[in-house]
């Protein structure tokens, strides 16, 4: 038996199929994961993500500490409530985790980290916080419900008193507010609008049930994965890990090299790596029928028709792949070696080995889908 979130009994009552996810018993779906996916793209769905870690970092030098700890720069958070996506790196540039940092107030921050890595993250953060005298407090008494979809914000607001509802509905993307004991952030992991709501675990069941009554569909990890992959968002442990760095994981945009004097952990390694040819991290759309999966090998397509390419050595491999319910096609993220001949995004072709047969796929720039709209032409 794994760890249980405050909503475990609710999931069981709703007939969810539960799976082990990083040590937690979580719903993979409540019926059809494709219907749950469509509910999020077309209306509103919700995910219990209480397995994720909420870590508050406070102290006079908290901001200074996070500018050392994170590859992105919390100095960009110019107002309270603003949020930032960042990697947390080792000295060698390897990615320990990806997270969202919120500025709750001046020198009061909140990090939301992955569930599977939270123990290791806590140890790492605590160790480095000491030199800055910053306090590191895991908020285990909080649950997190992600409500996502075009109607997610409006439906969530029905749970709140009028003033609080008005405040959260006026939030800009990637910002958060604290209302009536809830921390409501306009963030997510689906490519749709919506909120991630952090609330006392004691209120999680009543909030989840109220959202059900408001017409929000419960959705599981299965739909969460197809949604995030359509949105071109990386999954820690699949698309990147400590053996990879942001520059070969499609996350160069999250590394703040400016200002040059900011000495974040991993900077020296990344400064070296950025001068070398980098692996390319690309999106793939399968042109044929079938499903792309993690670890399938990717080959040069020009080698197929007696072309000049090398048909024996893979260009790289798929890091995560799935069937896209929105596009009705298989899609994937793939890491290809530096200089791989894949042509321009949207035009290049590669071959993917699926159970011993090679299938044609097109190279595209993620995301594949955003805000309900397909971004790749089929």
């Amino acid at each position, binding site marked *: 038996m794994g760890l249980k979130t405050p909503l475990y009994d609710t999931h069981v009552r709703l007939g969810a199929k539960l799976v082990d996810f990083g040590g937690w018993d979580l719903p993979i*779906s409540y019926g059809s994961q494709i219907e749950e996916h469509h509910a999020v793209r077309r209306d509103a769905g919700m995910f219990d993500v209480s397995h994720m870690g909420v870590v508050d970092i406070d102290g006079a030098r908290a901001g200074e500490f996070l500018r050392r700890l994170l590859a992105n720069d919390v100095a960009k958070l110019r107002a309270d409530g603003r949020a930032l996506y960042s990697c947390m790196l080792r000295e060698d540039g390897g990615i320990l985790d990806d997270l969202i940092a919120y500025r709750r107030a001046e020198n009061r921050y909140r990090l939301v980290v992955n569930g599977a890595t939270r123990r290791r993250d806590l140890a790492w953060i605590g160790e480095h916080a000491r030199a800055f005298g910053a306090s590191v407090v895991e908020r285990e008494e909080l649950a997190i419900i992600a409500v996502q979809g075009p109607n997610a914000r409006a439906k969530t607001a029905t749970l709140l008193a009028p003033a609080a509802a008005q405040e959260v509905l006026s939030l800009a993307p990637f910002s958060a507010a604290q209302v009536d004991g809830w921390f409501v952030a306009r963030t997510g992991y689906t490519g749709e609008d919506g909120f991630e709501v952090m609330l006392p675990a004691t209120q999680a069941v009543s909030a989840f049930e109220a959202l059900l009554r408001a017409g929000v569909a419960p959705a599981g990890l299965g739909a969460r994965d197809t949604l995030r992959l359509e949105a071109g968002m990386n999954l820690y442990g699949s698309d990147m890990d400590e053996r990879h760095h942001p520059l070969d994981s499609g996350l160069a945009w999250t590394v703040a090299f400016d200002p040059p004097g900011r000495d974040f952990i991993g900077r020296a390694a990344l400064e070296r790596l950025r001068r070398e040819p980098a692996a390319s991290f690309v999106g793939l759309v399968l042109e044929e029928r079938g499903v792309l999966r993690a670890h399938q090998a990717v080959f040069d397509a020009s080698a197929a028709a007696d072309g000049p390419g090398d048909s024996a050595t893979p260009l790289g491999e798929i890091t995560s792949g799935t069937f896209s319910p929105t596009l009705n096609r298989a899609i994937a993220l793939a890491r290809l070696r530096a200089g791989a001949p894949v042509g321009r995004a949207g035009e290049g072709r590669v071959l993917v080995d699926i159970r011993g047969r090679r299938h044609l796929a097109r190279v595209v720039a993620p995301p594949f889908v955003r805000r309900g709209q397909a971004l790749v032409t089929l």
Partner: protein
Amino acid sequence: MSENPRDLLYTRSHEWIRRLADGRIEVGITHHAQGALGDLVFVEVPAEGRQLEPGEACAVVESVKAASDVYSPVGGRVAASNGELASRPELLNEDPYGAGWLFRVLPAAGAAAGAAAPDGQFMSAEDYDRFLAEQAH
């Protein structure tokens, strides 16, 4: 109550086997199998005329979550395969014992045509129910 029709035979790899009046064997995957896989999105069935060995992996059913091989319970020639599944893989979820059939085999001469194999590798519905109950523990 069991979802598994009483008039079919079952394998440990979760195929069902229906003996047709003309001696052919119809094969599909069980209600349990489709439920474990989740929403099916891709099905590959064997080409008609293909010769199959007993136990040969000859079809692939793939859900959003995972791909799974389907094994031919008997040796013989593929007499028909369900082409409808190419455009409507969800038939496997909706009607696994009917519209979701995968392929039909004309058993090779000498194969245990339609009967339970001599080594008892096929199960009755009652035995398959018990098998599933044991696996759940």
